[in-house]
C-alpha cells in the first residue's frame, strides 16, 4: 500500500453532525472519496463533542482511499463558548464582546496546546490572548 497523496482537504465542521451537504460532499466527492464513509466515521469519532466545531484534516490518496485526523476546535470557537457570546465584536477596539478570566485562557491554551506551535503553556496563552483581543474579548485577572 504505497500511498501517494493526491490532496489534503481541511474542513471545519460541527462535531457529530456532518452531512454530505456542502462543503463536505462536493469537497470530498471531486476527489473520489466515499462521502458517506467519511461522514459516518467523523460523526462517530466526534459524537461526544457535539456543539463544537471540530476541524478534520483528510488525506486523500492516489487510489481515492483516505484517512483523517480531527483537530482541536478553533480558538475563536472556544473563546466564544467561554464568554457565552454568539460572535466576536465587529469593532474589537471600540466595542467589547465580553470578558474572560485569565484562568479560562489557560484552560483553552491547554486544550489547544497539541495543535499550536508553542513551546510552553505561557506561549500558548499568548496566542489565545491574541485571538481574544482581535474578537474584542477582554482578559480579566
Amino acid at each position, binding site marked *: *500500500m*504505497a*500511498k*501517494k*497523496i*493526491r*490532496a*489534503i*482537504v*481541511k*474542513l*471545519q*465542521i460541527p462535531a457529530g453532525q456532518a452531512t*454530505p*451537504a*456542502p*462543503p*463536505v*460532499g*462536493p*469537497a*470530498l*466527492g*471531486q*476527489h*473520489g*472519496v*466515499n*462521502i458517506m*464513509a*467519511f461522514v459516518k*466515521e467523523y460523526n462517530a469519532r466526534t459524537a461526544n463533542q457535539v456543539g463544537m*466545531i471540530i476541524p478534520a484534516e483528510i488525506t*486523500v*490518496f*492516489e*487510489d*481515492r*482511499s*483516505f*484517512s483523517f485526523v480531527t483537530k482541536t476546535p478553533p480558538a475563536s470557537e472556544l473563546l466564544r463558548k467561554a464568554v457565552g457570546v454568539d460572535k466576536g465584536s465587529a469593532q474589537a477596539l471600540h466595542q467589547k464582546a465580553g470578558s474572560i478570566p485569565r484562568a479560562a485562557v489557560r484552560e483553552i491554551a491547554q486544550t489547544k496546546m497539541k495543535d499550536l506551535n508553542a513551546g510552553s503553556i505561557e506561549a500558548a496563552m499568548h496566542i489565545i490572548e491574541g485571538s481574544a483581543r482581535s474578537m474584542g474579548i477582554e482578559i480579566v485577572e
Partner: protein
Amino acid sequence: MKWLELSLRAPAEYVEPLSVIFQRHGYGGVAVELVGGYNPDEDETQPDDSTAILRSYLPVNSTTAFRKEQIRVAVELISRLCSLSPLEERVMEQGEWMESWRSHFSVLHMGRIVVCPSWMEYTAKPGEVVIGMDPGMAFGTGHHPTTHMCLAELDKLVTSGMKVLDVGTGSGILTVAAAMLGADYVLALDIDPDAIKAARANVKANSLQRVVKVQRGTISSESNVEGGFDLVVANLYTKVILGMAPTLVAQLATRGTLIVSGIMADRMGEVERALEAEGCTLLRMDREGDWAVLVGSKTRG
C-alpha cells in the same frame, strides 16, 4: 436546489484571512485543499512553495448575489497584497457529488478476476471470478498499479487448496481475490483498525467468512501466525518490505511463493537482494509506471 461553488488558489499565508471571509458568507464553512503528488512512505514531503485551494459553497437563492459580492470585494482587497487566482464559479446540482465520487471507480478486469464496485451490476462470463468491493477508507480498490499487479499475479498463482497469507490487507481486495480463486484458507493481517473494518465488510459481502480470517496485527509481533503458507502476498512499501524480508520469507512453506508489491521501481534491486539473502529466489518482476512487483520462490530453509 442548486449550489454555487466559489474557489480560488492562494499562497499558504493568506489562507487564514480568506477562510474567515469564506466562512462568514459561505454555507457550512470552507474547505481548504492542499495539492498532493508526493509519497510520505518514500520520505517525500510536501513541496515548500505549495499553494492552497479554498472552496466555499453558496445556496442559489435570493441571497446569493449579495454573499458573492461580499466575498468578491474581500478577495479583491486581499489580492492587492499577494497574487491570487481569479475567483472561479461553478454551479452544482444538490447531491450531484453523491454520484460524482462513484464515477472514479469502474469495473476492472484482470485475467480471470473482475472487480466490481458494489453499486454496479455485472454478469460473469464463464470462468470469471467476480469480486464485489465497496471503496471505503482503506486502500485497495484494484485501480492502483500496486494492487493491480498483485491481482495479476494472484490470477496466475492461486490454485485450489492453497493456504495464503495477506500482509497489510487494506480493503481486503487481495484476500478476497485469493479466496475466490480457490484458496482453502486466507489469513489477512493489517495494523490499521479502519482497514480491519473494511476488510471484514468486504469478506462478508463476498460470503467468504468460512475461508478467510481477518486479524489485526503484523507478522513480527504475531506469535499465533502459524507459518507454512503456500503463498504470501505483501502489498506494502519499499522501506517496510526491506525490514520485513526475513519474517515474510519465514512464513512460507518450502517451495512457497512470495509476492511483494508497492516497491518503487528504482529500488527493485535492493528488495531482490534482501529476499535472496533469506533464501527466496526471484522468479520474475513486473513494472507499471513507478511501481514494481517481485515474485520469488523459497528455495532454502
